[in-house]
């Protein structure tokens, strides 16, 4: 209430030169790895493709009127009755695979990123609180985290979906519940270190509200590990969503993600129409590997131990 | 080095112009640069220096355990007249633990925590002698008894964590003594121990050396340990021996400013009250960026222009060596 001055208070950012140069420095370091650039480029292209799917896709895969059952199971590169080319072939209902993949990518990314963001917000908040406050709250939160992490991800997701039923929102919730503990653990570890530093003590001396100390002072300094783990967790979330959808307990058939597309194609695998399953599979694979490459590089450059 | 000693049999160890370096990406680190010394049968030589002076690397060079990117790349290590630098790895392995033994600094870390003491001792016996397990075990028991471990038979089947630090170091010494080696290299074995335990261990080693004629290289940063234990001493700085001689001679009449600095920094009854305990200013230089000339120059109270060229070894008195342009005079010391 009292201090309007707290905006000008020098709660020193960690001893680094102005933010932009740090950013530029990190950027330069990041770009010094070719694999990382490749990963980043792929991720950006995939993200753009997902966002622009309605405009890029030759066909609206959900519009049954546009589908021609005569065109079903055509191999990649074939031409349709109307002289139209299916670059990646068609599925069992004559749906253009390329369009299906573009739309599926959209759903995979939305679910993956969405659940990762939610998990990050929830997990990071708890982690911050645990690391900063310590004591019983810390002990309790970490107990829950440990218990949580001792159960495999698939099992937890299965439990939740078994109870809630399927659907995009429920998948997002399931993945969020699966993942928050990783964020909490990471942020807590950093927060415990940061809590002892002068800038936090300075903020405490000014009797700033706890929430402000947590989110304005502590959180920014917990960002590096958080960014790294968030990147990795997005890949894991996408992978988990695909797995759940493949099992048929994820997204509904009306809004197929990549995982569901792969599952739909799976029934044709045994009869030799590989592409219906493989093409979305390759898309999924490339996406996950690309995100991991970016994450790996981020971990290298943001890890203070690797800094000289 | 010692030209005047009467013609005796070959010394246990004679190191000549030893060169050990680490071939790093950022450059060549000369950890040991032209070190020479001799240790006779049953003699204890103290190798003294700060951390990073190359004293431990000298020890590891002798026993052939310098890990890449480090490598011995010059000089000779004559052990009972045999040049160890020319031996194959298998030949070296047969000497290690057998004729040359080593004791390491931290007794908490030298024994494998998941193996019982008897396992760790029996394997040492059997590594070099073809004896039955029970014979090896009884030798292990005798060795434990010899280093003053009570009820050795029971202790044999204990795990390392059931021993105190001092006891563990005794076990390590017992392991080192299993084959009655000709040479023991002790790398700061008492640094991690209490002072009382330290003196017990020192007495133990001294006794064993006398009894079995074992030569000992005692690596330490602590001159006071050397004073009570060693026959000879060599002081190392930045990979070189800057001063050496018999313990009494060097400690009573130090001539190199660095030796003198080390002696000055030992608290003792003599220094107490009389003058301030002093410390050597600055830090040991990085091996990757050694100054030209005398490496001690930057911290030396007597440095002069001449010190910018590398000093050579001189022999100021019989049995003494010195690597300094501007040593203190002998008379200066009380």
């Amino acid at each position: 209430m009292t201090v309007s001055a707290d905006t000008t208070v020098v709660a020193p950012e960690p001893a680094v030169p102005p933010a932009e140069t740090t950013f530029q420095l990190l950027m330069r370091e990041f770009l010094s790895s070719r694999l990382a650039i490749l990963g980043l480029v792929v991720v950006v292209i995939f993200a753009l493709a997902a966002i622009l799917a309605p405009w890029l896709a030759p066909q609206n895969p959900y519009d049954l009127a546009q589908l021609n059952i005569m065109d079903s199971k055509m191999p990649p590169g074939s031409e349709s009755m109307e002289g139209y080319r299916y670059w990646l072939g068609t599925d069992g209902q004559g749906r253009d695979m390329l369009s299906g993949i573009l739309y599926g990518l959209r759903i995979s990314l939305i679910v993956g990123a969405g659940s990762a963001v939610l998990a990050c917000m929830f997990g990071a908040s708890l982690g911050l609180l645990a690391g900063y406050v310590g004591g019983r709250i810390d002990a309790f939160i970490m107990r829950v985290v440990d218990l949580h992490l001792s159960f495999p991800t698939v099992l937890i997701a299965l439990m939740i979906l078994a109870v809630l039923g399927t659907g995009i929102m429920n998948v997002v919730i399931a993945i969020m519940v699966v993942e928050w503990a990783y964020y909490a653990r990471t942020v807590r570890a950093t927060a415990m270190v940061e809590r002892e530093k002068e800038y936090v003590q300075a903020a405490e001396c000014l009797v700033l509200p706890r929430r402000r100390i947590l989110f304005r002072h502590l959180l920014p300094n917990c960002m590096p590990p958080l960014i790294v783990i968030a990147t990795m967790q997005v890949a894991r979330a996408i992978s988990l969503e695909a797995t759940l959808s493949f099992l048929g307990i994820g997204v509904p058939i009306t809004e197929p993600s990549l995982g569901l597309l792969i599952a739909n194609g799976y029934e044709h695998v045994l009869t030799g129409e590989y592409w219906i399953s493989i093409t979305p599979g390759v898309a999924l694979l490339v996406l996950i590997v690309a995100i991991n490459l970016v994450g790996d590089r981020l971990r290298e450059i943001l890890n203070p131990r690797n800094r000289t | 080095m010692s030209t005047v000693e009467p013609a005796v049999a070959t010394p246990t160890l004679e190191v000549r112009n030893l060169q050990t370096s680490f071939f790093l990406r950022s450059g060549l680190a000369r950890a040991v640069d032209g070190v020479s010394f001799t240790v006779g049968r049953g003699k204890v030589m103290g190798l003294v220096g700060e951390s990073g002076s190359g004293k431990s690397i000298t020890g590891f060079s002798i026993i052939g355990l310098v890990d890449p990117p480090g490598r011995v790349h010059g000089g000779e290590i004559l052990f009972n007249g045999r040049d160890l630098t020319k031996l194959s790895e298998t030949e070296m392995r047969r000497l290690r633990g057998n004729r040359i033994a080593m004791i390491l600094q931290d007794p908490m870390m030298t024994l494998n925590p998941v193996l019982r003491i008897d396992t760790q001792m029996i394997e040492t016996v059997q590594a070099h002698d073809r004896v039955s397990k029970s014979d090896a075990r009884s030798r292990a028991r005798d060795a434990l008894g010899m280093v003053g471990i009570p009820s050795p038979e029971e202790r044999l089947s204990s795990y390392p964590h059931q021993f105190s630090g001092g006891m563990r170091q005794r076990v390590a010494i017992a392991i080192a003594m299993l084959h009655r080696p000709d040479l023991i290299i002790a790398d700061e074995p008492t640094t991690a121990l209490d002072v009382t335990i330290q003196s017990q261990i020192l007495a133990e080693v001294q006794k064993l050396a006398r009894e079995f004629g074992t030569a000992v290289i005692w690596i330490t940063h602590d001159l006071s340990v050397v004073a009570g234990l060693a026959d000879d001493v060599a002081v190392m700085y930045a990979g070189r021996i800057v001063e050496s001689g018999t313990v009494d001679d060097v400690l009573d009449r130090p001539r190199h400013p660095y030796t003198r600095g080390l002696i000055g920094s030992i608290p003792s009854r003599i220094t107490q009250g009389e003058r301030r305990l002093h410390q050597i200013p600055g830090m040991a230089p990085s091996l990757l960026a050694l100054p030209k000339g005398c490496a001690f120059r930057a911290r030396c109270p007597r440095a002069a222009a001449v010190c910018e060229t590398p000093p050579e070894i001189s022999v100021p008195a019989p049995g003494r060596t010195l690597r300094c342009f501007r040593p203190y005079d002998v008379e200066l010391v009380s």
Partner: protein
Amino acid sequence: MTSWLLRRLMQALMVVTVVSMIVFAGVNVIGDPVEILISPEATQIEREQIITRLGLDQPIWKQYLAFVGNALQGNLGNSFVYNEPALDLVFSRLPATLELAFCAMLLGSLIGIPLGLFCGLYPDSKLSRLIMAGSILGFSLPTFWVGIIFIIVFSVHFGWLPSGGRGETVEFLGTRWSFLTLDGLQHLILPAINLALFKISMILRLTRAGTRETLSMDFIKFARAKGLKPRRIIGVHLMKSIMIPIVTVVGLEFGSVIAFAVVTESIFAWPGMGKLIIDSIYVLDRPVIVAYLIMIAVLFVVINLLVDVLYATLDPRVRVGGAA
């Protein structure tokens, strides 16, 4: 040791209780218990009778106690689909899953430990780098996708191995096993490798990290200074040190393999618990779902407990020293 074990048992009991509460709450509060427990064909009067008989008009905590009481007697309701006790059903599928999980863990250890040891001993060799890069793939590839590729390559394209089912089984110790017949083994191999891939990567990395860390220890240097042969240093000093964490993790991961078997069993139509739970979720066979979840929670807790005890017996420092 006894008090430690007792405390550990209490903890395990706590975990099972918490899980049972969550499952109970999930089924009874979020879902509609009437719909879950009563077959949809029942008439209105039958429904009300059943509701009273099942005590669904009672307060929730009383219901929970009743649920626990029944569960303790092994009664978790009847499967809607198979019309037999849900728990029996889950139990009947357990051996198939255990067989698969065990084979996967065995493969994971047999491949992961030697490769990890190699990568740890020769970290700079080209082969090590290749193996490590491969292990990243093993980590990031979704299991189901690798499974599909396996089927496409080995079953459909080359026709070497069957794509699903358990194959011929033989009765042994009261249940039927695949690994005792050639046909069964052929059916087992693809799913087992599929399930093992992730574990291979993990065990490999763990072994490598342990090897690297242990090699830098003084006791390894001391062992070398004793003149031991490299084979003994690696085989005894190194292995014995790194085996403790590896055995621990392999044990703990056994539970996760059973859980991940859900995916592999679905792909390869392996008739285990995982396939059962997925099928049950499809048709909302809730008693089976509850039985599976409770069962796997108990399994998990038991495994954790066993591993803890195993760890305590393996590591001499824990064994004798403070058992906390």
